[in-house]
């Protein structure tokens, strides 16, 4: 069965390693913080200027001056630090953040990503995404395999304006975990109960399928 958003977040959380600083994008990526594997410590950076983000505040304890990059009210953990936007992107551009998780509208097999603009229709802006994808050594994209019309978003070539080129190395969708190498998608894992055939049929880009594709263990 295809994963829900929570499932995608849980699977991505398995990629976390002890001691990492992690930047989570808006949407599904934000949920990753809820599923940190036991025994490891990671610290969350939000590009609007905080390191050491904690859970959402209790009702009535919100502070308008303390938000994340999705403009949601948050709290901080012990040992947190606040800083300005230039410092924040120094961390990102300077590769001090070990993992970036973000959403996408399209990903292509050479690692390009598009997630900020649909010409003539929607322009929200790139926010910090262009800095993140251009700088991060380790980017995981959390996204749905297809759009609402059922068209694959895992493509040979992106059709939308790009956010970054050749930067994505791993994609986690409701159906599969894909790695990008040598200009191809490699099928690494499939969601529990999802067939290899379904993944093949919903992937427009070149997909390399090994003889045995393990199911995700969530």
């Amino acid at each position: 069965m295809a994963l829900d958003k929570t499932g995608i977040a849980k699977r991505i959380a398995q990629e976390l390693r002890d001691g990492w600083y992690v930047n989570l994008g808006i949407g599904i990526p934000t949920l990753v913080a809820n599923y940190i594997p036991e025994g490891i410590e990671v610290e969350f950076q939000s590009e609007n200027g905080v390191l050491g983000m904690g859970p959402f505040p209790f009702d009535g304890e919100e502070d308008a001056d303390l938000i994340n990059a999705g403009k949601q009210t948050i709290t901080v953990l012990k040992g947190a630090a606040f800083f300005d936007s230039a410092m924040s992107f120094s961390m990102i551009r300077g590769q001090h953040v070990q993992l970036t998780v973000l959403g996408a509208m399209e990903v292509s097999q050479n690692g390009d990503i598009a997630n900020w603009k649909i010409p003539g229709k929607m322009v929200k802006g790139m926010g910090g995404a262009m800095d993140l994808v251009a700088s991060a050594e380790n980017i995981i994209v959390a996204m749905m395999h297809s759009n609402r019309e059922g068209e694959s978003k895992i493509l040979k070539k992106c059709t939308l304006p790009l956010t970054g080129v050749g930067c994505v190395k791993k994609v986690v969708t409701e159906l599969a975990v894909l790695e990008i190498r040598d200009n191809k998608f490699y099928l690494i894992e499939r969601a529990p109960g999802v067939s290899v055939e379904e993944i093949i049929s919903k992937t427009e880009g070149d997909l390399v399928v090994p003889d045995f594709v393990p199911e995700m263990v969530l």
Partner: protein
Amino acid sequence: MNKVVNNVEEALVGIEDGMTLMLGGFGLCGIPENSIAQLVKLGVKDLTCISNNAGVDDFGLGLLLHGHQIKKMISSYVGENAEFERQMLSGELIVDLIPQGSLAERCRAGGAGIPAFFTPAGYGTEVAEGKEVREFNGKPHILEMALSADFAIVKAWKGDTEGNLIFKATARNFNPMMAMAGKITIAEVEELVPAGELDPNDIHTPGIFVQRIFKGEKFEKRIEQRTVRIKN
């Protein structure tokens, strides 16, 4: 060296049609709301506004958009504002969208006398169009130019009579860099204290960058995405 002005009216003297303004804040967090209200009142037009976001429909820079006071926006993310999207798609509003890190660094550069710098952000995208590309350490970078403004308007938590500023939590965001990059920088603060009350070690924006400072009359501090968890 008297930087203290009595109110927002005095603080904004000299802002005219067609000027370039920088306004601090991320979303509605840390925006100079008293000054924005005064800009609405003044009715200055054809402004170029440099601000990470454009407010929401009925607060923040959304108020200036509503009155068609803004000719051009330089921002990184504008996704919370229907009127903005309408004006942009209809061509009424000129919009220059740039990566958030580049925006922050370009403001800092403007204040720091660095006319241009290389960054990897935006390479291979629309953002790089017309910009010089150069490889460093095997990786392509684009040349980005400094930004500056006729007036920078920032919001701080505490300020002293010398113009020293301290920001609170994530309300800091773009305020310190913009404070550096204004020909004239105006700070509205929640708390204005005599020189000597702030620990010199704790200052975020040294007073040298601030020309005018005043205590804001009222801070609504609207929350854009109130997100809470329920107590068990």
